[in-house]
């Protein structure tokens, strides 16, 4: 396929990634969150493969398969099992109400667009326009971590941030060198195991995964 078509497909996938990021921001149900996260990972791995095909950067195929297996299959599966074991079926509370969260999200998208302007001017890659979307996904993941009061959603927000970062790597530079990407994937895997263990620890001690419970460590006046 020629560069133009690839750029369009990439833009479309970027838009889909942004859409899933917003979807996760407003989604209340736990399983819905996991499905949206899996979709985001799928769009990300397809985008990586497309960029790898068109730019001739073959190590991106490996990254794409890594993303697919880790973020689309393994991590959602782990989360799914955790939610079932810990019997979390409730909806998630939010600190700010949903429309306000969406407005903040839109503001973050505009902000990241302005922030990545210098990089966009200098880049010669076909994927340069998607760097803003990547940074926006990172920010939206951060917003999700801040505005939700549940440990599982905080983790999903964290993983969404990692998705955005990975997307940023492919947008700005056709992917980091393979050794770095493998290391990052390893770190994510270890982090996944750790938070799995964590959930059990939290659940055993606090009997719920509501973050509000964990607010004891403050200075007393």
């Amino acid at each position, binding site marked *: 396929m020629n560069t133009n078509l690839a750029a369009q497909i990439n*833009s479309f996938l*970027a*838009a889909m990634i*942004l859409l899933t990021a917003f979807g996760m921001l407003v989604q209340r149900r736990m399983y819905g969150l996991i499905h949206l996260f899996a979709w985001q990972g799928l769009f990300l791995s397809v985008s990586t493969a497309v960029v790898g095909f068109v730019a001739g950067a073959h190590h991106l195929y490996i990254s794409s398969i890594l993303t697919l297996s880790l973020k689309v299959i393994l991590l959602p599966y782990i989360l799914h099992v955790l939610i079932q074991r810990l019997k979390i079926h409730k909806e998630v509370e939010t600190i700010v109400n949903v429309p306000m969260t969406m407005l903040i999200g*839109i503001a973050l*998208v*505009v902000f990241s*667009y302005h922030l990545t302007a210098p990089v966009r001017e200098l880049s010669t890659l076909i994927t340069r*326009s998607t760097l803003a979307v990547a940074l926006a996904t990172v920010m939206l993941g951060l917003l999700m971590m801040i505005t939700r009061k549940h440990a599982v959603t905080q983790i999903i927000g964290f993983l969404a941030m990692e998705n955005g970062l990975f997307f940023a790597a492919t947008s700005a530079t056709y992917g980091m060198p393979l050794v770095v990407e493998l290391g990052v994937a390893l770190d994510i895997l270890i982090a996944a195991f750790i938070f799995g263990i964590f959930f059990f620890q939290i659940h055993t001690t606090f009997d719920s995964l509501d973050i509000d419970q964990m607010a004891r460590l403050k200075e007393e006046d």
Partner: protein
Amino acid sequence: MMFYPFLIEVLQILIILAVAPVFAGWVKMLKCWSQGRTSPGLFQPYRDIVKLFSKDVVLAENASWIFRGTPYLVFGVVVLSGGIVPMLSVDLPLAATADVIALVALFAIARFFTALAGMDIGTAFGGMGSSREMTIASLAEPAMLMAIFTVSLASKSTSLSQMVQVVYSGQAVLRPSLAFALLAFILIALAETGRIPVDNPATHLELTMIHEAMILEYSGRHLALIEWAGMMKLFLFVMLGIAVFSPWGIAASGDLAAIPRAFLFMILKLGAVGAGLVLIETGLAKMRLFRLTEFLGSAFLLATLGMLSYFILE
């Protein structure tokens, strides 16, 4: 040809008057089939309208001119709107005078007077329906404008025929902004025309009504006009969506011979959209009222995302 635009205009008004009830009947038929019931037939809305015209009007004693005049006003406004939305041909004379903002304003006029009429008599249900309707309107209108603006960014004009022209002549391009705008438009159309998941058009329970509650007191020819206008509004929203997002098959400017083909395409697309509408209505449940803000907020969000992605990605 001088009379070509005039012909198109007259044809469109005739189509909207005649085909809108058939579309409503088609949706009802599909819904009944999907729910395992026997449908009342494709042309039942005609029979309903004729029946209503032959009945007497029962007016409350304190009904003012607003109550009496609203059905005619609403009917007129919707027919006028029908003259703006391109259905058969790209070349539409009235489109030069009224763009999409005027279209939204026309719908607003209709809604404004219906809401007033609902409160006119002084019944509780009428007031409730009016307030709910205005809540939805206050959220849906900005979203609708944002969605249309996203499309007009690409066509550099808010005139509907111009927009259709640009989308028609462009290649089948994967434009994220249009995709987002389409999603937003679907959500808004569901809200504005009062379908599930926003409002159940077939409900009999007054406390769950939004649009129906405003017109509870109407009877006879007034009700016939309002019902007909309601069907035409649904038809118009569908045609607006088809014209702006998938206008292929529409007759190009000045091409008289392509009109019958355009008409055929229109019928086919209407049939498909009707089926899609029934899928949505049967698949979803009606939302609780206070979730509406989120629903319409999502629509606004999608439209804004479409606009942003136009600048960011294109």
